[in-house]
């Protein structure tokens, strides 16, 4: 399970980095999204992989899942969602203003 999750995070990050380096805004936006997926998963896993355990104190519990990463990842998801929404709007705006979706806006000095 650990190996699978870390492989997943690695693949998402690699894909994200590759797409971020592309020259058009659409792949770049996708790349940033993949990166944020990877980092959210990573953050979530930092409380270790625990299955079927409560995150709050209960008398019958035999072990606990760490609640802090769950709170952190919730914050991170909200923030990355807002950032993605912003950057999509910005990319569309750049497309209309510059007439193409190249990140440097070909033909604009």
């Amino acid at each position, binding site marked *: 399970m650990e190996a699978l999750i870390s492989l997943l995070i690695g693949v998402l990050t690699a894909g*994200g980095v590759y797409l*971020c380096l592309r020259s058009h*805004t659409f792949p*770049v936006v996708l790349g*940033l999204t993949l*990166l*944020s997926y*990877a*980092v*959210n998963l*990573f*953050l979530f*896993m*930092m*409380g*270790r992989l625990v299955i079927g355990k409560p995150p709050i104190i209960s008398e019958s519990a035999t072990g606990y899942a760490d609640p*802090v*990463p769950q709170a*952190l990842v919730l*914050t*991170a998801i909200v*923030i*990355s969602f*807002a*950032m993605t929404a*912003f*950057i999509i709007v*910005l*990319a569309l*705006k*750049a497309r209309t*203003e*510059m007439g193409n979706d190249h*990140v*440097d*806006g070909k033909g*604009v000095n």
Partner: protein
Amino acid sequence: MNHIVIAPLLLPLFTGIFLLLLREQRIYVKRLIAGASGIALITIAFKLLCQVSDGTILVYALSDWSAPYGITLVADRLAAWMVMTTSLLSIFALIYAMHGTDREGRHFHIMFQLQLFGLNGAFLTGDLFNLFVFFEVLLLASYSLLLHGGGRKRIRSGLHFVVINVVGSSLFLFAVGTLYGVLGTLNMADLAIKVAATPPENLVLVHSAGMLLFAVFALKAALLPFYLWLPSAYSQTSAPSAALFAIMTKVGAYSILRIYTLIFGDHAGPLANLLEGWLLPMALLTIIIGTFGLLGSKRLRQQVSYLVVISAGTLLTGFSLDSAAGIAAGLYYLPHTTFATAAMFLLADLISKRRGLMEDRLDAGYVITQQKFLGAVFFALAILASGLPPLSGFLGKFMLLQAALDHPAIVFIMGIVLLNGLLTVIGLARSGSLMFYEAHAVDKSTNTYYSQVSPEPLNVRELLPVFSLLGLCLAMTIGAGSLTEFTAKTAAQLLDTSAYIEAVLSKGAP
């Protein structure tokens, strides 16, 4: 509990929300509210500075959840000093914006307040994850301010700025996640204890997380390999935004100073002084590249952007000397360089508005209205920014070099800082003479060009911020004695991490 610690956060947040409700109101109402809030912020920042100036560390536990479990805000001398600088800078950027910039879009004042919320939060937080959250708040507000007014070039440089900062935020989260996964805490005071006691098998992980954090902060502070976003973003945005952004690179410098004295400082056991050997060369190389950029600039605003890069390098040179004197000199230099570059951005806009199609291009244009007066102001600001005597820039650099005397790399530090001073003078003198001395007289009968130039008289809302920022630097020169005493005490407090740790963690004891 002392609620003044959270006041610099709540005031701009509530003002921002309130302004959002007043969206449909006339601009005068919004200006009045934003201005009043700005003045109130200065009052609060001053009170906070007074309360911490005797060395107390004020700790504010939100909802009374004690550290390290709850979220804490910590106000020590350094944090109060940064909040004070921000509040002073912001009011003058705001006054300048009231001369028309805030009409170019509907949400300027709202974003401005949220930016202040993020800045003050980043300075006051005592928790690494909240540092990330406040970074995001200030960045999202800065994206809007950067793009305020629109236009092709602004959108293009804004796109680069946004993408690079979103990537930076991902790196920040990776670092934070690694630290939490290994050490199980994100409270800075608690981290300081836990890092020192890292088990040997996890040293590599904590080390890489520490360096990853450095990369993120270096990106915000515009250090050498990460500075490329700055010149185009700052030179394309509107003048008040650029002036306010003068403090944004200092957020990165502040974070480097805080994290690498508190968490990875002298007391961090095997990870002590993590940045030794990294920070100084990077800072010096940043100064060199910034100087080249300054000399090669084709536009005045681009040139001022490189001044920001140089100031980040100089500041971090001071912080990297690893001595109380170096940090103290850097902390004295910080408000000076912030005010000076902000005033330069505002003046560049003043000049560029009067040159019509020439804008801020560094070429001989036509004589502009009030040429002599603007030229004199430019001359004064150039002296200030390049660190010539008798103004505060000289004092800051002098103290910095004095602190570096015992450093093994003194030859490089002395050589680069002094040469940079000389070349900055040459670069700014060239711009000044191109714009003011070599300007041609206008033949109005044959020239259609002149109709493009606004002969608008100088307005008090334009001049007041520039002169006030200049005045602040003058006051820093006159009050240098007591200010350096304060920064020396700040540096001492910063290096004595046990007081900080004790203040934060004992606060939590039930």
